[in-house]
């Protein structure tokens, strides 16, 4: 187990290094000058140069790469060109929205998907099953930004149960903040819940047809007991995989939703930073996201071992 973990860690570090190179290189080729962006069309050439000097844009590519990576290792992600604040602080602040949002959406997805998937699997072929499958088909097919928009119109503009967007901050009370995240979380989780429901159902159906479930039934367990005690945990592996993949999507993929609800999350930070050519922020945030995704997958891998003792021994 330890060796396995260490081996995974090594490949993880390598992945991160490669990722940092890819990100840096990709951003190097993006045309556009942050200084020009900041100073606008009336700026004079000497002003632009002065600013570039200030921002360290005149250094060589190699030295910029190394100082970036070296900084990151020490937890210093540099200072934003436009905001002139440490990227770390900016990210930390945004993370307090993106992360809870992702978790909230994931929790919603799981809360819906597990019961729905289990129920559909148990009552396979029934009206309930068809309904669940039909609804999830729709859930996958609806573009989430469109759905979000419709929700805003209904719940914020017409019914006025929620505010249209924005985030009051955690300081103003947990429930207020949660309320502000509710519509975005629903919008974000619709598709995920649908996918998860389907995976849950089919994975469960697969395990239900396994021999050991039959063994359990022969012991005198009812269908329901066999499902709960034996099938469910075995059905979790594909479900975990999907959850792992979804979590990365949820953290990073909320850009459009963050826009619709004008939430100051990480996704919007990237979007904004790219358009402002605040490249150091883009680099660092993407790097952090990649790191997060890789870590989540790592955690999911470890979770497999938790679910399945066969994986606990070294692989």
């Amino acid at each position, binding site marked *: 187990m330890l060796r396995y973990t260490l081996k995974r860690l090594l490949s993880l570090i390598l992945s991160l290094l490669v990722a940092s190179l890819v990100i840096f290189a990709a951003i190097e080729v993006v045309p556009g000058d942050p200084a020009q962006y900041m100073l606008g069309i009336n700026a004079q050439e000497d002003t632009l140069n002065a600013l570039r000097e200030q921002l360290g844009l005149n250094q060589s590519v190699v030295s910029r790469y190394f100082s970036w990576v070296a900084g990151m290792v020490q937890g210093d992600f540099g200072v934003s060109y436009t905001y002139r604040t440490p990227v770390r602080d900016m990210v930390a602040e945004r993370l307090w929205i993106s992360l809870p949002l992702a978790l909230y959406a994931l929790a919603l997805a799981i809360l819906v998907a597990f019961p729905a998937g289990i129920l559909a699997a148990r009552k396979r072929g029934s009206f309930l099953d068809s309904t669940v499958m039909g609804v999830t088909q729709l859930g996958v097919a609806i573009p989430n930004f469109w759905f979000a928009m419709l929700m805003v119109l209904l719940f914020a503009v017409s019914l006025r149960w929620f505010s249209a967007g924005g985030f009051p901050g955690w300081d103003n009370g947990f429930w207020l903040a949660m309320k502000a995240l509710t519509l975005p979380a629903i919008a974000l989780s619709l598709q995920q819940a649908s996918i998860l429901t389907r995976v849950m159902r089919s994975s469960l159906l697969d395990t239900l047809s396994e021999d050991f479930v039959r063994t359990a039934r022969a*012991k*005198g*367990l009812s269908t329901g007991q066999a499902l709960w005690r034996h099938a469910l945990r*075995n059905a979790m592996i594909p479900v975990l995989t999907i959850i792992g993949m979804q979590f990365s999507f949820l953290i990073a993929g909320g850009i459009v939703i963050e826009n619709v609800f004008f939430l100051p999350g990480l996704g919007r930070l990237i979007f904004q930073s790219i358009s402002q050519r605040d490249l150091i922020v883009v680099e660092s945030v993407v790097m952090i996201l990649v790191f997060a995704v890789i870590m989540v997958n790592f955690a999911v891998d470890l979770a497999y071992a938790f679910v399945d003792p066969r994986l606990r021994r070294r*692989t």
Partner: protein
Amino acid sequence: MSLLSVENLSLSIHGTPILKDVSLSVEQGQIVGVIGESGSGKSMTAYSVLKLLPNGAEQSGKIHFDGKDLGAASEQNMCALRGNDISMVFQEPMTALNPVKTIGDQVAETILIHTDASRSEARAMAREALDRVELPADKFPLSRYPHELSGGQRQRVVIAMAIALRPKLLIADEPTTALDVTTQEQILKLLKRLVEEDGMGMILVTHDLAVVANLADHLVIMKNGEVVETGGADALFTTMKHPYTRALIAASGHVPARHEHESTEAPLLEVRDLVREYPTPRSGLFGAPGVFRAVKGVNFDIKQGESLGLVGESGCGKSTLTRAILGLEAAQGGSVLIDGAPIIRDGKVDRHVRQKMQVVFQDPYGSFNPRHKVSRLVTEPFFLLDEKPSPAERDAAIAEALESVGLKSEDQDKYIHEFSGGQRQRIAIARALIIKPKLIILDEAVSALDVSIRAQILDLLADLSARFGLTYLFISHDLSVVRAITDRVLVMKDGEFVERGETEAVFTNPQHPYTKALIQATPRLPETDAA
């Protein structure tokens, strides 16, 4: 009154009839063997008793257990019955256990479900049950997971689960088919002992006549969902006369007629000090990766025209040896020579040498690409030829190969799924024959076949060998088959040969204890010669 009586049981699944008027009964302390070919409805009969039928099944007829009418029993009542009064042991020990729960939990679960026992009491009882199936506490603590056990050991866990509450009736559905002979023998002995100790009734389902012939008190022979004949086990060879029964008996003990052939002195295949190693996971964090020697420097020859058997229990290295001989995996030491030429030269397989041998694998279903027609399948070895045959030559070769294995040349335009298992194995042999190799390696080539089909294939092999002077390396864990078809035999254990010699000599007078154990464990029809 019988413990279990099944009367006129009929069953259909989604409208397809599966069982027709099946009747049988089991008394206390009695072992009833249910025998029949694959697909004859043995398992379905067993499931009907437990009412564990697949979706869409409709059943009619009467099933009485211990005076209760199971047909009228509710699902709830059945749950109370299953595992408590009637238990079942399934065919596949590898998949019958939940991989994510400890064996202790799984055995204890039966007890927890049916009794008021506390957790610790249940665990104590589970321990007892495991002890009874000879899984002692010091070696097999309750905290073991199924993947930490061998197939035979897992099957014991399944049995422990089934007998934990000392049921009145135990249904064992092919409890040993997935196990090797020595393990099979142990399991069968165990079951017999349990019946004797507890006085329970048992249904033993199998397709292997030899397995039950010695064990069962009463036999039920099934074919196509019907019971064709029943009777006491002792009546098998005397009063049982149904043609199907006779055919089963004949096929089980079948010995193909083999013709004498002269073998030259020069060996066709020489295997010298062959070593095959697999890397094993590192031990500990900084430990070097270990190696596992699956084949430990073996030596043997096969002479032209000879049929050499290779026996040994599962995992002893037979297939590994095959792959090394075929040059599919590079050996770590030693050499393989065919007609004096090495199969692997400069790290590459020498196709001219490879042309001289072909192989037939075990699984008649997995041996063919389902997307190709038979003509394409059997001509695949042409790839080895330097000069590709012309279309006419090719057609002739296909026709010849198919006809020589008893198929028609028209069959070449069919797809593989249009053939039965036995036919498929014939096609596999046709494929091996098509480039006229000298040596054919048969790796468990008949193990997956029903007895009657197996008999046909063995006849075919004998016939081909006579006609073409073929040389066989015949690999099997089934000793009776090896005995029937080979001249000489090698006995393998843990990657080494422990005994070798003329087949008859080895079988009648085994020297090595392992060989003795193997032969002893092989189930045999009683009075085979009388048949």
